[in-house]
């Protein structure tokens, strides 16, 4: 619910990026990112496929660690 999973940038092409989270790849637009994006950055992505926020590495990795613990648990 209302979760935006921090997704790591693995490829940059113009205003698009390929991001990865939990093994899933997505192509996202960087048009809403007013500051530069680099390979390895963690981004939050809106449902429409727009990256909208960069997350600090430490925060992103902690979020992914916690989320990783619930992957595979029964869902509500």
């Amino acid at each position, binding site marked *: 619910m209302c979760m935006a999973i921090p997704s790591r940038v693995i490829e940059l092409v113009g205003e698009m990026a390929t991001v990865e989270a939990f093994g899933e790849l997505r192509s996202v637009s960087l*048009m809403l990112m007013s500051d530069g994006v680099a390979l390895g950055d963690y981004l939050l992505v809106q449902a429409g496929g727009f990256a909208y926020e960069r997350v600090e590495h430490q925060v992103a990795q902690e979020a992914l660690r916690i989320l990783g613990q619930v992957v595979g648990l029964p869902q509500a």
Partner: protein
Amino acid sequence: MNLEAKIHIKLRWDGRRIVRAELQPRPLVRATELVRGKTAGQAAIIIPMLFSICGKAQGAAAAVALAFAQGGAPERVAERERLVLAEALQELLWRFLLDLPRIMGGQGNPPLLAALRKGLAQAAAGQNETAWQAFAAQAETALSQAILGMPVADWRKLADLEQLSEWLRRTDTETARNLLELWNGAGRWGDGGAALMPAASRERMLTEVLPGLESDEHFPQHPHWQGKVMETGSLARMQAHPVLAELLRQEGASILARFLARLIEIAELLDRLREPVEPGWVHGAALGPGIGLAWVQTARGLLLHRAELDGQGSVADYRIVAPTEWNFHPFGPCVEALTGKPASSADEARHSAELLVQALDPCVAYQIEVEHA
């Protein structure tokens, strides 16, 4: 498991109309699984970090619910209120600068939205009166120039549907063109029969909503108001506005009404952001030893958090009810409004569903499947 799971909508179309619509809600990760055993302080940090869509509202709700659960009172409420209002303002502008144009075949204005997001980030970092007033001014300029095509104060004087229609016909902004298309027919449907949520007063929350939340473990997935499905969001909050009340009398909760309500609420939020007024958007209550509740308004509607701590002060249970689950309930306004909708092609059926979904505004992605009956 995909943690950002989609809402699935299946339409059965018989060549003339959608004869049946089914909605499968997104699978939810139980909030309890993420924070059980953590201290209240840890949970207050983890929740907005994970539930980062409307993260300011999630952060405020977590802080308030956990503070009451600890037997205290929430701190920095005025500061959180400002953050929640500003986030909602930015989210609602997003709908007009990006989402509505794209669903109507346009491009929107991503650079302006990016600038507004940067302005919000600066204001949130500054956390002082000057920073909030600067963001309000930036948002008002965007609203008047890129969306309304006229000063906000003049637009707010439009007193009835006739004046609103006249504004739409003589205004050359992408929003006005999009809304005119909705006005001319594309958006004059969409009432699914669900009641619009009443104002979330303390008494109503405690007597009409909380019993369901506490007794029904499926409530976060299938929320109800004393057993009834409800629509939450701008239209519910703004339903008493004279122009919207007139439109609701004429055609119910149409797609047009939902988008107009957002626009009207943006103008109201500018005022609130400049000078917050009561009743605010961030509320909470102590429910008993170790239990706290928060109810917070967001752009998409009502957000509920209920926190329960054990005797050691660790989280024993945590429930979050997001607005998307109200509006995308399997028997809610989305499904009911689509059933019977005329469509001369499968593509038209799909586009109708996309438009309605956008009007109800889920915070997650969705997938629409059309099946020929």
